[in-house]
């Protein structure tokens, strides 16, 4: 059932190509897909019916099965993905009107949606990983939608590389845990949580998984890819890079919360990095001028808040995290869409060029104000609830509460400042430098933000009636022993409310003195944050490539003789290692009356080999010397009675000499590459290698095997194979297939000479 739904979503990604003709309504048509799916998933109703488990065997050998596991947490995400999906597709219909390649765009957006659905509903962690990577890939394609712009390509590359570092590390982590538990099912993991945490490999696995989640959710120090990803078309930013994909890391952490939540690393690393990201993101947002970048940094900040909350790992903090997740998706998706509308209608996103849009774009102004208020955390909007809960959760942490509270308050003050400042600069300021006269937004583009803003308002005023049950079941998925927590707009007058008021007050104060504060922040930013992670990232890549180029030039120098020396060097090392290891396993050689003759011939061979080395000899001389070596070798064969072999050796030797001589005039002039040192080096290497081979040959000659298959040949050559000459019988009968191969080699070699000589380039 779930499998069908996801397969349907994946297949639906081909749909846009079918509707290529429907230029004006493509987005609307595509939006039907998430609508249908939403309808389907709503009917599952995990709130009332409990968790849904669906199992399909795929590759049991690998532990990789298409198992789905939908609990409250998954449901929350599914509704988020599909709901946002409808709005985004509708919005894209207006936004993408004039771009070529729309079908590709919709297709990848749908594919992304399918992957995201799969990710949140996967019950098998490897399946989760598969979908995880799919989201990265589709994100890559969407970021590089304007692929002929270098910025887009770079940003896409950066995003994919960073998320794939994370992807690989979570794969590693999953496999480690999987090998501890013996299964990749999330239910098994949760059931055996204590087994996992008590294993000595669990720390490594946890760190790997956290790393993966951090890259995906743009935590410090990997935060920089997210603002750069804003080169993507705005629907993508709204959908992937604020509402859904970047939450995948958060989702993963929430999923594993029941297992690792109690560990020290979890409770140390997540709040630490989360709070840093929270503060930094909010601060960076203030000093930006591009609307989308501002929102991107606030997204980073919010993700930091989420990670921090998950890391605290108390009932309250989890509730706060889920609440804030919802809140953030609602307002941030809307904000991106609005930014896109402004960009389209006015022609710029720079807040210092924009201004006074209140008059020409009243509806947009209203919606934006509403949404920004939510972001600032002012009641009665839902943003207020989110912030309240963050404070509530931070306060009751045992040791580090003051630290966390400080970070949260500072971060939120910047959020408030950003909201006010952006709203003022874009809509209420008098002066402006519009590149073109603003026009009203079309219905399809305004539809999404409008609904989202109203949702913010509705959920904020009536949390009990609207979102309470869904959040409740999601919390239960993470904290099973959880007691019911009511979500109310009005908590009573307490410390938390005080903090909220203080935050808004401080933010407004900063805004009032914006002429002093904002420029101060900008200079501060420029002075202190001189390291740009993104630039650094590319310069590291550049340096890495140059280093590899150098290394490749060193290793891959193109000199044949040095390749050969390397090979023989490594061979000598290996062989000598083995000889030393197995020293002493040889016995004495047997001498007979002819051994001295053999010794003389061997000496002649060795001497001739050495004499053929100097380059001054010239080719013909070397060939004659090689001929001499060949004859001597033939003599050795004769002493052992191998007449056939000796004859063949002499024939081959002579014919080789002849052929070489025939080819010689074609060769280029002989150049002496080697100097004296080179020759000495080669000689040393040759001696080392040759002696190794010699020792091995000696060892094997003195330790012959007891019964060899050649005994059989000697015995049955005449009686069964009807031949006295064993060599020939072996060649044509016992091992005839070898000979068949060899004559094929000969024929093919003659073809080689043919091609070399006939296809010669002049």
């Amino acid at each position: 059932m779930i499998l069908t739904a996801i397969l349907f979503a994946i297949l639906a990604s081909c749909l846009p190509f079918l509707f290529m003709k429907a230029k004006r309504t493509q987005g609307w048509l595509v939006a039907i897909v998430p609508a249908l799916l939403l309808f389907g998933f709503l009917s599952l109703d995990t709130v009332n019916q409990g968790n849904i488990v669906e199992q399909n065997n795929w590759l049991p050998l690998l532990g990789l099965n298409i198992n789905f596991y939908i609990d409250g947490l998954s449901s929350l995400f599914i509704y988020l993905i599909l709901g946002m999906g409808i709005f985004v597709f509708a919005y894209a219909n207006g936004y993408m009107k004039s771009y070529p390649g729309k079908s590709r765009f919709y297709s990848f957006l749908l594919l992304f949606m399918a992957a995201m659905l799969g990710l949140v509903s996967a019950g098998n962690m490897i399946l989760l990983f598969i979908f995880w990577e799919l989201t990265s890939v589709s994100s890559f394609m969407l970021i590089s939608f304007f692929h002929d712009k270098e910025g887009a390509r770079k940003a896409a590359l950066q995003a994919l590389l960073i998320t794939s570092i994370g992807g690989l590390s979570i794969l590693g982590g999953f496999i480690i845990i999987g090998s501890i538990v013996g299964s990749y099912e999330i239910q098994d993991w949760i059931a055996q949580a204590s087994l996992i945490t008590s294993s000595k490999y669990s720390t490594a696995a946890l760190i790997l998984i956290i790393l993966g989640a951090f890259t995906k959710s743009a935590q410090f120090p990997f935060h920089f890819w997210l603002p750069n990803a804003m080169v993507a078309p705005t629907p993508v930013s709204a959908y992937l890079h604020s509402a859904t994909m970047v939450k995948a890391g958060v989702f993963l952490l929430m999923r594993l919360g029941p297992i690792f939540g109690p560990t020290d690393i979890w409770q140390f690393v997540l709040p630490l990095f989360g709070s840093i990201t929270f503060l930094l993101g909010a601060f960076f947002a203030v000093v930006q001028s591009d609307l989308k970048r501002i929102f991107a940094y606030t997204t980073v900040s919010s993700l930091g808040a989420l990670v921090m909350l998950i890391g605290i790992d108390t009932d309250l903090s989890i509730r706060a995290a889920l609440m804030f997740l919802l809140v953030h998706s609602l307002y941030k998706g809307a904000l991106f869409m609005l930014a896109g509308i402004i960009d389209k209608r006015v022609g710029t996103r720079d807040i210092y060029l924009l201004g006074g849009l209140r008059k020409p774009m009243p509806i947009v102004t209203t919606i934006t104000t509403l949404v920004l208020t939510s972001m600032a955390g002012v009641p009665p909007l839902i943003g207020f609830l989110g912030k309240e809960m963050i404070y509530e959760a931070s306060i009751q942490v045992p040791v580090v509460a003051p630290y966390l509270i400080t970070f949260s308050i500072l971060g939120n003050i910047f959020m408030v400042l950003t909201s006010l400042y952006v709203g003022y600069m874009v809509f209420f300021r008098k002066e402006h430098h519009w590149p073109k006269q603003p026009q009203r937004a079309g219905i399809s583009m305004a539809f999404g933000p409008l609904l989202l803003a109203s949702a913010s308002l509705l959920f904020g005023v009536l949390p009990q009636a609207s979102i309470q049950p869904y959040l409740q079941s999601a919390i239960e998925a993470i904290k099973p022993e959880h007691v019911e927590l009511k979500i109310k707009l009005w908590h009573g007058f307490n410390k938390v409310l005080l903090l909220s008021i203080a935050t808004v007050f401080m933010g407004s104060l900063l805004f009032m003195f914006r002429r002093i504060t904002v420029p101060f922040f900008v200079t501060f930013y420029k002075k202190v944050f001189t390291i740009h992670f993104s630039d650094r990232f590319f310069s590291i890549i550049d340096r890495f490539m140059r280093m590899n180029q150098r290394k490749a030039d060193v290793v891959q120098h193109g000199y044949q003789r040095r390749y050969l020396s390397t090979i023989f060097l490594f061979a000598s090392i290996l062989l000598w290692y083995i000889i030393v290891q197995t020293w002493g396993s040889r016995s004495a050689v047997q001498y007979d009356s002819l051994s001295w003759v053999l010794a003389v011939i061997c000496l002649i061979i060795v001497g001739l080999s050495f004499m053929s080395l100097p380059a001054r000899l010239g080719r013909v001389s070397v060939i004659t010397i090689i001929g001499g070596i060949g004859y001597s070798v033939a003599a050795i064969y004769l002493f052992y009675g191998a007449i056939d072999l000796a004859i063949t050796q002499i024939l081959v030797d002579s014919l080789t000499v002849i052929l070489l001589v025939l080819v010689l005039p074609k060769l280029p002039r002989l150049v002496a590459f080697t100097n004296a040192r080179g020759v000495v080096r080669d000689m040393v290497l040759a001696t080392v290698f040759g002696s190794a081979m010699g020792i091995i040959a000696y060892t094997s000659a003195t330790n012959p095997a007891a019964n060899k298959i050649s005994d059989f040949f000697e015995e049955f050559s005449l009686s069964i194979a009807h031949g006295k000459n064993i060599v020939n019988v072996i060649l044509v009968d016992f091992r005839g297939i070898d000979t068949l191969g060899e004559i094929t080699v000969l024929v093919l070699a003659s073809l080689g000479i043919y091609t070399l000589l006939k296809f010669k380039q002049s």
Partner: protein
Amino acid sequence: MNTTLLQLAARAIRIMMLVISVFVLLRGHNQPGGGFIGGLLAGGGIVIYVIAFHTHQLLSKTLRAMAPLRVIGLVLALGSGVLGMVLGKSFLHAQWFNLNIPLLGTLHMGTPLLFDIGVYLAVTGVMVMVILLLMEDRKWN
């Protein structure tokens, strides 16, 4: 160096070499020799002939006519194998016959000999091919 002496010797040697090579081939199963050695020897004979007569007009044509030998050799070798497969148990399974030839008496023949002839032809053909190509390429003076 295109001397009469060499040409004279080459004629005699060539014939001798070819005859000996066939001889070596045929008795190879029992005495030193066989297809490979025979083929190489025949190749040597052709080399010496080419060296002596390389200016001769017809040489290239003659050699060219001999080039298909290698394919014939392959066919024979493969054929003997397939024959073994058809008549016997396995690929390359040796099959022996007693041929009654008038005059010579009974001859014990088998597919290994056929195989050996294939080897011989292939080796000779390859040698011829190589020499032909090198010669055409060089245009010796």
